[in-house]
């Protein structure tokens, strides 16, 4: 319902890209004015153009823009906001930012600083989880800075082990070590990444669970001590420890296990006095689940839950932040899948840069696209490589997979390399279709297109070179007003000919 009196007057969205736009969409639907912030490279970004107000933070570097607490508070004051939504990433799990908001008289749309701090420190989080009777993966509850001690501890836990940033989240700063001789260099890189990403270089060791599935519980807590959970999401399709495909429900979860995981997640939330939206991540392996970490923010993959439950989690966040009680959790319906569209090489998974020169986004029944893309958008190396998310909803899992495939085939982006081909191959993979997969699934996925696709591409390139050089062989009456013959020049330049 649109409240006659909006929950807030004006909301600062302290983020960029698709999540900034997504938060603004809900705010607008609730009659809340939206205020954007931007770095210089984002001046023309959709989150700026679609906002009611906009404020320049500074140069592209995150430290001078989206990570700069002082500038964000200044922005909120200059635009006379009364609340701040941090999105995900950047300062969303920074307790100091939450405190700075409170000091400036701004409502921070997220959990209280002490909960962010407790869950943000992975070592501390494990202690609290253990006390709340939430099962843990065997590991080390402290940072070890001495190389030799670390090697001894790793041997005790048993290889393979994982190195994780204590302040981390979203898979950043995680390294797997399979042999002792690689431990020291891995720890060095992990510390460097952790330091760059979170300003905190502490890392800790953990046993690597075999055939693990990544299953997480979406919780929501109000200021009156109530906590509910919105089922689970399975996020086992990962590359470089970054999620690529998420789905709900998780095919291997029994109702009893789902209930047990949900209740464990709610216990943890209550134990830290949680408020707002949060996600408790678990590793699932052979009927057992282990607490991984709690993300004290809205998750990238939250739409998977939204389409299945028919709920708007950002709306719930804003309601809870305004002091309202939780709304009842509706019955889930059908099956949902999200595919992240990353600017990266589908073969090497390295990030890619470029400028979008043409795009077609998918549509039609059961398809939702969360993105801040536009023709002319330049993908720069300054920020995350995720361009957007495709979310589909189907009657059951097979229907959702078919719909996801259909929608992915409709998505066209010219000017940037994306992870779409990999996602399509996962959707075709027999193990994925059976639901019998774990976080290692991508290792077995072909990185190359099918032979007939390669032949088609070869013929297409050849006929384009032939036909575009001979405008009279194609029906010129059909040619659109904007000339396609520009390509001719470019193709000819490649061939070394000048015209």
């Amino acid at each position, binding site marked *: 319902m649109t409240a006659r009196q909006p929950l807030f007057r004006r909301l600062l969205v302290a983020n960029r890209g698709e999540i900034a736009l997504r938060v603004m969409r809900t705010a607008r639907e609730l009659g809340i004015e939206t205020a954007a912030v931007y770095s210089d490279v984002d001046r023309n970004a959709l989150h700026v153009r679609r906002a009611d107000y906009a404020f320049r933070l500074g140069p592209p570097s995150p430290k001078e823009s989206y990570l700069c607490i002082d500038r964000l508070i200044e922005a909120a004051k200059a635009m006379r906001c009364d609340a701040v939504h941090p999105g995900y990433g950047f300062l969303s799990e920074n307790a100091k930012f939450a405190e700075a908001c409170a000091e400036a008289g701004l409502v921070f749309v997220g959990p209280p600083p002490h909960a962010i701090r407790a869950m943000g420190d992975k070592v501390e989080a494990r202690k609290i989880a253990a006390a709340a009777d939430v099962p843990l993966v065997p590991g080390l509850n402290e940072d070890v800075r001495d190389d030799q001690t670390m090697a001894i501890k790793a041997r005790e836990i048993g290889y393979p082990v994982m190195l994780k940033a204590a302040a981390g989240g979203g898979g*950043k700063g995680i390294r797997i070590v399979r042999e002792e001789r690689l431990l020291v260099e891995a720890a060095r*890189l992990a510390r*460097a*990444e952790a330091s*760059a*990403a979170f300003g905190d270089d502490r890392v800790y060791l953990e046993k690597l669970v075999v055939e693990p599935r990544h299953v997480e519980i979406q919780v929501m807590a109000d200021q009156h001590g109530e906590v509910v959970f919105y089922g689970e999401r399975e996020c086992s399709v990962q590359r*470089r420890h970054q999620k690529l495909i998420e789905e709900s429900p998780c095919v291997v979860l029994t109702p009893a296990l789902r209930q047990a995981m949900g209740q464990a997640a709610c216990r943890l939330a209550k134990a830290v006095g949680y408020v707002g939206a949060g996600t408790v991540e678990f590793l699932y392996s052979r009927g057992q689940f282990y607490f991984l970490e709690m993300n004290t923010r809205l998750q990238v993959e939250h739409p998977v839950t939204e389409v299945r439950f028919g709920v708007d989690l950002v709306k719930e966040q804003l309601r809870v932040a305004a002091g309202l009680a939780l709304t009842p959790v509706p019955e889930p319906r059908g099956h949902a899948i999200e595919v992240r569209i990353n600017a990266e*090489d*589908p073969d090497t998974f*390295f*990030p*890619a*840069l470029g400028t979008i*020169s*043409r795009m077609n986004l998918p549509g039609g029944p059961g398809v939702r696209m969360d993105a801040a893309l536009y023709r002319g958008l330049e993908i720069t*190396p300054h*920020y*995350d*490589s995720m361009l957007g998310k495709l979310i589909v909803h189907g009657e059951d899992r097979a229907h959702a997979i078919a719909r996801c495939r259909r929608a992915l085939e409709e*998505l*066209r982006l*010219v*000017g940037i390399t*994306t992870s779409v*081909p990999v*996602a399509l191959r996962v959707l075709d993979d027999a193990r994925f279709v059976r639901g019998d997969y774990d976080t290692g699934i991508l290792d077995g996925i072909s990185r190359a*297109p099918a*032979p007939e*696709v*390669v*032949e*088609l*591409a*070869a*013929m*297409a*390139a*050849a*006929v*384009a*070179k*032939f*036909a*575009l050089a001979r405008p009279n*062989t*194609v*029906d010129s009456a*059909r*040619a*659109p007003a*904007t*000339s*396609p013959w*520009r*390509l*001719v020049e470019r*193709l000819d330049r*490649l*061939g*070394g000919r000048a015209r």
Partner: protein
Amino acid sequence: MKYFAQALSRDFEFGFEPRDGKLIARSGDRTWELDFSPLGDGNAFSLLIDGKSHDLLVEVYDGGVIVQTRGERVKVKVEDERERVAHAVANKQASGRRAIPAVMPGVVVDVRVAPGDEVDDGQTLVVIEAMKMQNPIVADGKGRVRAVRVKKGDVVAQGAALVELE
């Protein structure tokens, strides 16, 4: 005139011939009837091959085109007969050295080697940070560093030569 295309290490050869208002494609002893229709400013076209519909997007990149269809994206090098002859001559002048390129664009955060260093296969030469991930760039085999083309803090484009080995 023949057209030569190379994609994912496979070689293709096509001939095209307008006939009765249609376009006939030929490869070896196979033939197809094509209907080619460009749209936009040349980066998209519709191709009917024996009535089968393909929606294709084309980008020109350094040395070829990238063709997109139904979610797949394939790099193709394409040249006609005349160009092939010209390229064959040019390739004779290729040198023996090899450059280790940046496999992704980013910022150089560490340079681990100096000219004259002997390096092993897989040894980290340079570390590049892009989108918060640190990525080691490694030697593609044993060798000696002939030149280091970048320094810490440099922003490098994809494919840029970082280190020359010999």
